[in-house]
């Protein structure tokens, strides 16, 4: 499934869309960034509640397909700007991480 299909099917809000046609392969969820850094895989969708600019660094380092921020309100400007600069896909939803992962699992991701 591509990022753009994911946005439509799961009704996600766009924070930064750098590569809509990127193919998502598998997923990971976690909020302890050092842990995520060691475990998330390339092309994964990463589900997290964290919004600090460090998430962009982790996503860039691990080359994740897209970040989905759950229970999301407004994101820090710094994070959005950083994501634009580094071409990181970031989406958000009001759902919690459990609900989001259940939906992803339903898509066969």
């Amino acid at each position: 499934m591509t990022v753009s299909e994911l946005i439509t099917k799961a009704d996600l809000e766009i924070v930064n869309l750098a590569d809509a046609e990127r193919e998502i392969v598998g997923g990971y969820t976690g909020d302890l960034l050092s842990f995520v850094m060691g475990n998330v895989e390339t092309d994964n969708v990463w589900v997290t509640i964290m919004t600090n600019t460090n998430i962009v660094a982790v996503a860039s380092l691990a080359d994740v397909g897209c970040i989905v921020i759950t229970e999301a309100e407004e994101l820090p400007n710094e994070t959005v700007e950083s994501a634009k600069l580094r071409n990181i896909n970031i989406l958000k939803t009001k759902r919690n991480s459990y609900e989001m992962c259940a939906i992803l699992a339903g898509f066969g991701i």
Partner: protein
Amino acid sequence: MRELSLNILDISMNSVKAGATEILIELIENETDLVFKIVDNGKGMTKEFQKTVTDPFTTSRKTRKVGLGLPFLKLAAEQTGGSLTISSKTKDESTDGSHGTEVVASFKKTSIDFTPLGDITSTIVTLVQGSPEIDFVYHHKVGETSIKLDTKELVEVLGDRSMLTAPEVLMWISESLNEQYDSIGYIKY
């Protein structure tokens, strides 16, 4: 990171890489706060580099564009309501010839997001084992009591610095620290 001791290991490794010959790791703790300070006499950071060092896209490594030790530590401290401060000077900026870096991280232990100290003994043993040429001073003040290790004193007793990496010496360091912690009933997790 899951334990503060891993942050301490990570930040101390910066001091090792900066060519320090002395590294002081000091923790000051009471009922509500924990402050740790890592002071080295390494090459220091320029004012320019210092400004960007908590930006996750800055690093002293050449192989990747992001360095996350200090940004993660800042996040961990701020999540509890604490803070991170860094002061540093290079040889060129120094008026008295001294140079090096001081990282101070303060944590509110009462915050639900406070990460426990964890296995600090292993952190210290790992540092000594990896860099026996460096003088490490570890000092953890808990209220009125304190836990100490000074590898310079150890070298004086042993008579030979290379002895620091002998398994029985490392074992002694580990046991000594654990005994000191046990004697005050300290809970690391």
